[in-house]
């Protein structure tokens, strides 16, 4: 099985440890990754989408065209990339006029958008294509006794009608929970599970308000389930929840810290990756939690 790896800006430049985790985990589950050489930004909603629909679709279509030339689908660990690419595909496939305009632009660079390849989110991709049983068999270290709090990531869930691997009920997401349980972790729910983390455009527009959302979320997680780790399905949530706790501590808003990992980092760890490497960019070190687990296997 082979799939294109759409890396995404935040993963490539902010969290290369996450990129490493994906490159570690996927081949070990029997999925070969293609680099999609020459890929660009998805583009994210603050740039071309806020200027021109056709320009947005054209940049998205170029990324799709690279995958189509290789006959592959794309996977991404970033909800923003996923959401942007899902939408551009929807616009181009439902509106012939837009697709024609896009292909006229793509002609200039010798590419064409055909509408074959799809973009898929990495976690649901593994859930559907590999399955929980095979993941259970492949893991070296299990997370028994570990409590994790989930943060699925908005665009992984919504708009569900445009997605290929949608949840049965996006307001009660199951995929990420089942994936964590497959690794042995216990995954209790908490009241603000579906709340937004505050990353993205809100953080660049107004940090205070963005922190306010993160604080609500983290406080709810801590007071209701007090987990060992927060596990996200989205690279933006990962960055937001990992970095804001430091700010909130400085402002005396919280007096604790909970390490945050992307599901792919946790999976890579369970498959035997060096925990130091696949979490190397984390501000809040998950070392104690992960090394405790490793000690059991010594």
């Amino acid at each position: 099985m082979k799939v294109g790896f759409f890396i995404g800006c935040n993963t490539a430049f902010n969290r290369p440890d996450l990129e490493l985790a994906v490159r570690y985990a996927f081949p070990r589950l029997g999925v070969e990754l293609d680099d999609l050489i020459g890929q660009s930004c998805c583009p994210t909603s603050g740039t071309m989408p806020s200027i021109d629909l056709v320009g947005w679709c054209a940049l998205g279509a170029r990324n799709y065209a690279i995958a189509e030339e290789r006959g592959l689908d794309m996977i991404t660990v970033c909800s923003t990339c996923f959401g942007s690419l899902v939408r551009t595909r929807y616009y181009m496939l439902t509106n012939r006029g837009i697709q024609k305009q896009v292909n006229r632009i793509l002609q200039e660079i010798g590419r064409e958008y055909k509408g074959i390849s799809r973009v898929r989110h990495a976690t649901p991709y593994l859930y559907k294509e590999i399955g929980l049983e095979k993941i259970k068999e492949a893991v070296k270290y299990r997370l028994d006794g570990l409590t994790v709090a989930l943060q699925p990531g908005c665009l992984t869930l919504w708009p569900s009608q445009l997605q290929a691997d949608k949840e049965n009920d996006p307001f009660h997401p199951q995929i990420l929970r089942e994936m964590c349980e497959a690794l042995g972790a216990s995954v209790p729910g908490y009241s603000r599970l579906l709340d937004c983390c505050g990353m993205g455009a809100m953080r660049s527009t107004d940090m205070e308000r963005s922190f306010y959302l993160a604080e609500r979320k983290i406080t709810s997680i801590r007071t209701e389930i007090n987990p060992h780790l927060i596990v996200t399905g989205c690279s933006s949530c990962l960055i937001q929840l990992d970095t804001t706790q430091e700010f909130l501590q400085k402002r005396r808003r919280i007096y604790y810290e909970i390490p945050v990992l992307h599901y792919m980092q946790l999976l890579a760890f369970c498959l035997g990756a060096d925990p130091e490497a696949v979490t190397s960019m984390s501000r809040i070190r998950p070392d104690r939690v992960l090394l405790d687990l490793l000690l059991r296997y010594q």
Partner: protein
Amino acid sequence: MKTAVEIDVNSGIGTAVMPKISHSRGYSCSMLNNTQPFSEIFDPAQGQPGLIQEIPELRATKILECTQCGKCAAACPLVLSGFSFYNKRVIQTIVVGFKDLILNDSSIWACQSCNRCTEVCPMGVDPFEIMLATRRMAVREYALPTTAIEGIKSLYDTGHAVYISEAGIPRKKLGLPETPPTTTTYHEALLEVQTIMKKTVLAELGLIPMGVFGITERL
């Protein structure tokens, strides 16, 4: 004592005094004007009637389906964090025709693109599409925050909206190539992205130096 949202019964579009998080949560005051309450009374007759036509032209075609039921607002992170112009109110303000109200506020640029509104809308309006179309309208009036311009410039210059030039060091430590296999490694790929961007409305707007229409970057 101010309540969370005060609706002025005398006004047409419901003037609101947004809660300042800075007071209730102990944060310092924010830098942007979305924290300032607007408590003037607006006369709907003063609205600009043609405004509603602009939005479908900017590709949000279903705005007139909106019944102002408020489901989108109930799901919106902008509401949760106290921004003045969230999906429902943006639609309302456009329908009544107060362009300046939206342009003078940074709320639309804080939209998280989370698509909760699109998911819950019972009328199929796709409010997120309207937020984007409203941004497109604001861009055509050159009313956009500098962070947006920086993102667009970064996209044009590197092929990535988020680009960190120092990322090579941690990447190398992890045994990854210093630059990812994207436009940052392959110059021809970057030229493709730039060719595409030059063919869009962005070039006509002249927001960033692109070497077209005589706008170039000179250092």
